[in-house]
């Protein structure tokens, strides 16, 4: 690594308020965890957007490659019985 750079990329996730899921907001550069979370606060929550904040080094994230996505998610294609609409309910049944 050269002696002058912006540091590694950290992905930032913000929880807008308690009970809500964390949502990807963007990324920051930082040299360590403390700097990453502080940079994320200054950049992504200037207007009270957050009650919770996660940062994670981008290189530590595992993701599905776009070209593999189809075969990767394929196993769920033939299991339509996982959806409630698969089942036939008796005529006149209610609250189910």
């Amino acid at each position, binding site marked *: 690594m050269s002696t002058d750079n912006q*540091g590694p990329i950290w992905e930032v996730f913000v929880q807008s308020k308690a009970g809500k899921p964390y949502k990807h907001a963007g990324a920051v550069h930082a040299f360590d965890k403390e700097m990453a979370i502080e940079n994320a606060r200054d950049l992504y929550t200037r207007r009270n957007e957050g009650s919770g904040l996660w940062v994670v080094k981008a290189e530590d994230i595992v*993701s599905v490659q776009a070209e593999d996505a189809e075969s990767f998610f394929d196993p769920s294609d033939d299991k339509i019985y996982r959806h409630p609409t698969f089942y036939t309910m008796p005529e006149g049944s209610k609250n189910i």
Partner: protein
Amino acid sequence: MEDAKKLEEFQAKIDAEIKIEPKDWMPEEYRQHLVRQMSQHAHSEVIGMQPEGNWITRAPSLRSKKILMAKAQDEGGHGLYLYCATETLGVSRDQLLNWLHEGKAKYASVFNYPCLNWADVGAIGWLVDGAAIVNQVSLQRTSYGPYSRAMVRICKEESFHQRQGYEIMASMMNGTADQQKMAQEAIERWWWPSLMMFGPHDGDSPRTSNAMKWKIKRETNDDLRQQFIDKTIPQAELIGLKVPDDNYELLENGSYKTSDIDWDEFWNVIKGNGPCNVKRLKHHKKAHDEGRWVREAAIAYNKKKEQKLQTA
């Protein structure tokens, strides 16, 4: 052959309004267009801090000083959103900054005009940010996912900028004759550069066609410019400012017809001959160079901590 098929699938996704994400296949020309446009957009946000930043120490009240600081901080933040989005295309932040410093990447020419007085701060917020908003609202629907998401975030924050500028202009127009004169002179300085922000006429813009086909741009330069004109002229008239165009007229369709832009001036500033081109870039390099020791110290500190962790 395979590329032709991929290109076809790519275009089908674009046509179906499915966003392109960083790991998806994309034509090299699409990627390059995005890198150019998004980094230019990021540089514009950051360079745009300079004309106004000059006035933070001279703001006329504590209220206006706090507001201007928050606005300049937002512009820096917008630059960072956009740099991050550009980096998803596989270009490093350091590379993007190098291209700016080498003069290979551009930024919005409007920031090469000086901000002479407090009325100019108002005019910049109202007109320059106003023009930027029209462009950015349209870009929320751009086809590249990370760019689109950055635009949504920016648009949420940007309208305060325009309103603070218009408030400055309106309060000056409610003030003394001298203040009114200052405000009028400011609109005369900033009106044309703001209209130029939308770029050349569509027929003279070499990159419009692919950008439209690939939905990087959703509306043409001229359409966006017209939207801005139609919004802004009534705002000027409301507070008693006169748009510096003797030939403008309201058409029956509610749209305004205006004189043509001085394109010689436009190209001249783009080529680097504007009043502040040299100054803006020099200042950016200086700030970057003066921050080098901070980056080096942070790298060294982190290395030391990691070594400690390994030996512990």
